């Protein structure tokens, strides 16, 4: 566990940011990112995602706390760390008059690397920008502009890449493209931290998911572990005949009858398969009790349900 490769690539501890206006955007955040992983920071608008990225990338001055990247303390040793970090910002901010290739070459030079035409070509090709290399950025579509920003962020070959809402305001097709792209970067060994408020995105791509709300990290876990810990199985069994009440033979926790007494519902389990097993038990019990049914609808809760549940639960707690 003590080999260097097991050291987290990024360690944030006790990070707090209070903006000049007094708003507490980050509240004592602890977060540790492993080398090579794809981490999704999931949270509603205004949760503090962009602020967190800004604090790591040098755009936001932390009020307190420490950030270490590649084992360098960013407060003192920011040069070494920043040269290995890339950032694709949320807003499409770039000099729109510049041609694509020049903009990307500039980024490489700015980060102190020698010009490398072949490398730039490779990056542009991988983002399908090569044909557009001489076009001014202003003439490109929104999706292409975002690719240019990604190319700029990759120009200095970072080991750690931040993507702030890479698919916000992008149509479904482009979003799929972007996912593929991000997957490819990750294949190359780049550690990726992306923020999103699309749960679908976190679910599709991430190894681990962190949920942030009002500047606090509510939960960080493997995506699978999170689903298994908080996930539930839901089943709806349509009965052939209405039931007056749930017979004792089939009564078990999580089973209830709807108002019209025609649908028997189950909600339980933990995402580990326990729920499915219980549903199987339930159907067997129905047969033993001689209760006929005409349909079974079964579903596992998604990250989305977990997310919504978690936020609602916290909302209730903070109101209470």
């Amino acid at each position, binding site marked *: 566990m003590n080999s260097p490769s097991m050291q987290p690539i990024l360690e944030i501890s006790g990070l707090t940011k209070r*903006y*000049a206006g007094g708003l507490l955007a980050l509240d004592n955040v602890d977060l540790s990112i492993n080398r090579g992983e794809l981490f999704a920071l999931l949270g509603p608008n205004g949760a503090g995602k962009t602020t967190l990225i*800004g604090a790591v*990338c*040098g*755009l*936001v*001055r932390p009020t307190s706390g420490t950030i270490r990247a590649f084992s360098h303390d960013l407060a003192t040793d*920011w*040069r*070494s760390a*920043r*040269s290995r*970090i890339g*950032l694709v*910002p949320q*807003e499409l*901010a*770039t*000099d729109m*008059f510049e041609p694509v290739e*020049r903009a990307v070459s*500039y*980024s490489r*030079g*700015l*980060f*102190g*690397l*020698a010009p490398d035409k072949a490398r730039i070509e490779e990056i542009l090709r991988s983002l399908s920008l090569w044909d557009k290399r001489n076009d001014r950025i202003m003439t490109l579509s929104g999706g292409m502009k975002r690719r240019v920003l990604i190319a*700029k962020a990759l120009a200095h070959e970072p080991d750690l890449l931040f993507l702030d809402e890479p698919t916000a305001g992008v149509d479904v097709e482009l979003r799929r493209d972007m996912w593929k792209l991000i997957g490819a970067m990750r294949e190359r060994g780049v550690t990726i931290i992306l923020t999103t408020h699309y749960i679908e995105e976190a679910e599709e791509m991430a190894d681990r998911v962190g949920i942030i709300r009002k500047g606090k990290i509510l939960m960080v876990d493997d995506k699978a572990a999170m689903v298994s810990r908080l996930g539930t199985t839901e089943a709806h069994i349509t009965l052939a005949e209405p039931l007056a009440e749930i017979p004792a033979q089939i009564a078990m926790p999580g089973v209830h009858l709807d108002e019209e007494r025609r649908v028997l519902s189950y909600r339980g389990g933990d995402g580990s398969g326990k729920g499915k097993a219980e549903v199987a038990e339930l159907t067997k019990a129905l047969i033993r009790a001689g209760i006929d049914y005409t349909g079974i609808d079964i579903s596992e809760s998604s990250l989305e349900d977990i997310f919504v549940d978690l936020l609602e639960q916290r909302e209730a707690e903070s109101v209470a």
Partner: protein
Amino acid sequence: MTFFNARSAWSIYKRELVRFLRTAFQSVLSPVLTTSLYFIVFGAAIGGRMPDLGGVNYAAFIIPGLLMLTLLGETTSNSSFGIYMPRFTGTIYELLSAPVGVAETLVGFVGAAMTKSLILASIILATAMLFVDYTIAHPILAILYIMLVAASFSLFGFILGIWADNFEKLGIIPMLILTPLTFLGGTFYSIEMLPDPWGKIALANPIVYLVNGLRWTFYGTSDVAIGISLGLTLGFLTICVAIIAYIFKTGWRLRD
């Protein structure tokens, strides 16, 4: 562990020059036009009735002042826009997230400003050549002095561009302070021509020292000692560097 990355500075420098050349037509035409107009009005129309000043023909006398007039205005506005626009559009994120400190940033931006000012100066001097015969007494010193002034005022513009949080503020200092002081700064007259107490009051105008410093490198004569001009310019440069170093250290108006 490096403390200065020459490649980063070079990239900034190159990009700033490209940005300048993108509007080359405007950058070149505007000084040519204004200088010509000044020569027509002051050199030809009024200059004919003016005596030589300090042994220099009036039309030639105004050249260093005109050069300074354009230089101060262009350098200040160019570098204030150069840093204000990225802040305004958000593109500054890249500079802030790069392993780049105040040294690389200034070498890049100020180096570009000095290059631009030499290009501008050459254009203005060539234009002047069309209207009047003149020879420069200390050409090397003139070039160095132009670069020094360009460096100082690009730093000054840089500070303005960081301080301003809207376009109005960006324009207000050049318009309300720089332009009037430049016009009153002895471009078109020798302050010895001014009646008391105006001659003394004029000495409180810092631009007087800049114009006269440059005039000294041109003709070897001026209203104030060259040492004072040089000292004040260097002092101004130092103050600007200190302010910018402080801004970068604290992140004022750059990092939230």
